């Protein structure tokens, strides 16, 4: 297997596997936020802004995986 094919496969694996975890994490965060809003609709403003903060943290890990994929392919 030459290096170019290996790079392509590596990029796909890095990006694909790397976003599984954060994807599940964001789903859990969203689900928790929905439940909290269901219990207490008045606090939805606070809940939503905290949810966005938590989502941003987990998304950063997904972005990290994506950047690694780009580096593998294009550098």
């Amino acid at each position, binding site marked *: 297997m030459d290096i170019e094919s290996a790079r392509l496969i590596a990029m796909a694996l890095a990006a694909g596997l790397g976003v599984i975890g954060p994807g599940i994490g964001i789903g859990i965060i969203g689900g928790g936020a929905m439940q909290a809003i269901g219990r207490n609709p008045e606090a939805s403003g606070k809940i939503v802004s905290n949810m*966005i*903060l938590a989502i*941003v*943290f987990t998304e950063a890990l997904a972005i990290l995986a994506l*950047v690694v994929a*780009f580096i593998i392919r294009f550098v």
Partner: protein
Amino acid sequence: MAIPEAAVEGGAAGHAGIHVVLKAEEIWNIAGFPITNSLLMTWLTMIILIGFALLFRRQIAMVPSKLQAGVEMLFEGVLNYMAETLESEKLARRFFPLIMTIFLLVFVANELAFVPGVGSLLYDHVPFLRASAADLNFTLALAIISFLTIEITGVAALGFFKYAGKYVTFKSPVDFVVGIIELLSNVGRLISFSFRLFGNIFAGEVMIAVAIFFAAYLLPVPLMAFEVFVGFIQAVVFAMLTLFFIKIAIMEPHGEEAH
């Protein structure tokens, strides 16, 4: 920076694909200092922001015009949010310029990338302008500024030994390990701040280039709309996270239960 090219130079290799470069291309070189296309874009953003501020100063009146009312609403909203988070009006006023500047700079830089011409006008076969945040230098510089502000604020508010005592503590083995992990995560903020913004904007650019390559006039539209939204959210997040970490840094060691 991400250019779809249908056929290149006579098609000897028949190469069709997207030209993606991770590193910002150098346009000019002045006495060894490279001027890249994202640097030009950053300067353009600065000119727009500073120009707006200077022009706006002249029109400030007691009875506000619509523009002044809008700007006041934005500033007041952010200042109130900061005062609520930091629990001190004085501290909120002290950090307001930094947080607001970070937000405005990142927001305008992100949204300016959708002006027609950015990424498509070529200078010597290389795009003349490129989204500022698609260059790791820009995001890393902002991350370093945030990091230094957070650490210096912590030291200034608590004193060096008390602040260091939050991270290097010998009260118990568990506290010690947790402290070391917190210290590493503090330094890790440099990476996470810079890569979060860089990754979001750069990946957005690549996604739009791929969309243009496949269905040039229809597919990019919802993607670009989404990227406009992402640009706003990332600006908000950068400023908000700096604010939150400043708040965590100035907190007393015994008062914190969770982070």
